[in-house]
């Protein structure tokens, strides 16, 4: 075989590879289809005084107030929409009403649901901070948790809990009674309906359940009854991470906006990504990390479409609005 022939074969191979990569890029790296977001303001710094945080990890916006999990301070802080401190509640401990490490939050029927990662339970407060009840305990049986990361609440009060170390999502009645679980307890999986450290759940207005499947770098969507509907995040939505549009590097929080669009905190990529309910990528925004940690850990959306993001690295809350 002549040298020219070898070079031709190598050249053809390289061209084919480039063509394949280009096709893959077109197939798996979508262009933004929606307008971006503009940074409005931020508040908070490291500390334990009112308005300061020591590892903020969760957020929920409701009726003009912003509730923030302040994990290492073992409390929930409440602000107005401009970031002015209003009140705080919760103390460190494992007695009823106390908190270990509060993570993702949800608000439904004028109650705040706190996933307490450390105490293996969901703690429910009134919006004024009054302790109402606790759901679950440590374990791997029905209705038990091993580090719950987040909870979604359906319109009928049913709970969907991201049971982080048990590698499952549990569907519970409002009183904590077990209904069903998705995923096999303690078994990591990358196929549809399986989980790899699920971190959060959000329930849409139509009853669909969106799961932040943390280390599978994807979002999975289910019917209220657990029927798998769809998934997205990188090629095939199966644990392939990356920094591109529509790809993730650990999904740590999920929220559904007033128009049904889905917002996911893409932690190691320091951004929030926005999708249509069918998974079509719309846009992404966020703040680069100063280090050593990363920024976008939790997200929620107000009724007017304003997005509130917890910046874990900077110990602050950021407010973003849709670009006009």
């Amino acid at each position, binding site marked *: 075989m002549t040298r020219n022939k070898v070079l031709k074969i190598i050249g053809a191979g390289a061209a084919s590879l480039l063509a394949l990569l280009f096709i893959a890029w077109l197939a798996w790296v979508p262009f933004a289809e929606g307008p971006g977001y503009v940074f409005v303001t931020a508040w908070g710094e490291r500390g334990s005084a009112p308005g300061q945080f020591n590892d903020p990890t969760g957020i929920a916006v409701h009726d003009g107030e912003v509730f923030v999990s302040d*994990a290492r301070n073992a409390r929930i802080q409440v602000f107005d929409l401009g970031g002015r401190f209003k009140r705080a509640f919760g103390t460190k401990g494992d007695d009823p009403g106390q908190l270990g*490490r509060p993570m993702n939050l949800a608000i439904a029927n004028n109650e705040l649901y706190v996933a307490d990662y450390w105490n293996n339970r969901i703690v429910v407060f009134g919006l004024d901070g009054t302790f109402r009840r606790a759901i679950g305990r440590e374990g791997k049986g029905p209705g038990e948790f091993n*580090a719950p*990361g987040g909870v979604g609440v359906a319109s009928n009060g049913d709970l969907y809990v991201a049971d982080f*170390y048990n590698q499952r999502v549990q569907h519970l009645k409002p009183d904590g009674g077990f209904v069903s679980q998705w995923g096999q307890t303690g078994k990591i999986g990358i196929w549809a309906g399986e989980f790899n450290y699920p971190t959060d759940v959000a329930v849409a207005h139509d009853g669909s359940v969106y799961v932040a499947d943390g280390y599978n770098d994807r979002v999975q969507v289910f019917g209220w009854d657990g029927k798998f509907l769809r998934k997205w995040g990188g090629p095939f939505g199966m644990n392939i991470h990356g920094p591109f549009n529509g790809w993730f590097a650990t999904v740590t929080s999920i929220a559904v906006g007033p128009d049904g669009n889905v917002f996911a905190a893409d932690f*190691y990529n320091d951004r929030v990504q926005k999708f249509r309910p069918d998974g079509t990528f719309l846009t992404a925004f966020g703040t680069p990390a100063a*280090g*050593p940690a990363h920024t976008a850990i939790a997200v929620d959306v107000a009724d007017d479409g304003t997005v509130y993001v917890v910046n874990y690295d900077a110990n602050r809350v950021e407010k973003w609005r849709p670009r006009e």
Partner: protein
Amino acid sequence: MKTIRQLMMALALLLPLVAANAASMTYTLQVDGLACPFCAYGIEKKLSSIKGVAKVDVDIKHGLVVVTMTEGAELSEQLARDKVKDAGFTLRSFSRIP
């Protein structure tokens, strides 16, 4: 008299060792990928469940976990390795702080 002096010297030599054993022992564990709180808290939680652990500090900047034991308690490398594995990580190194 010579015997008493020898005994006193031996005691003087042993005292620091006894004191060191009586003090709390501290261990440094190197673990990759601790930047996310779900990971860092998971490690803290699993290691805190070990009998005799007084405090667990996570240094995410350097990927280090520092475990301080209660007085007289020790941490075995195998147990630390198992707990780190339970938390979903791999223990890269284990050392006792002198």
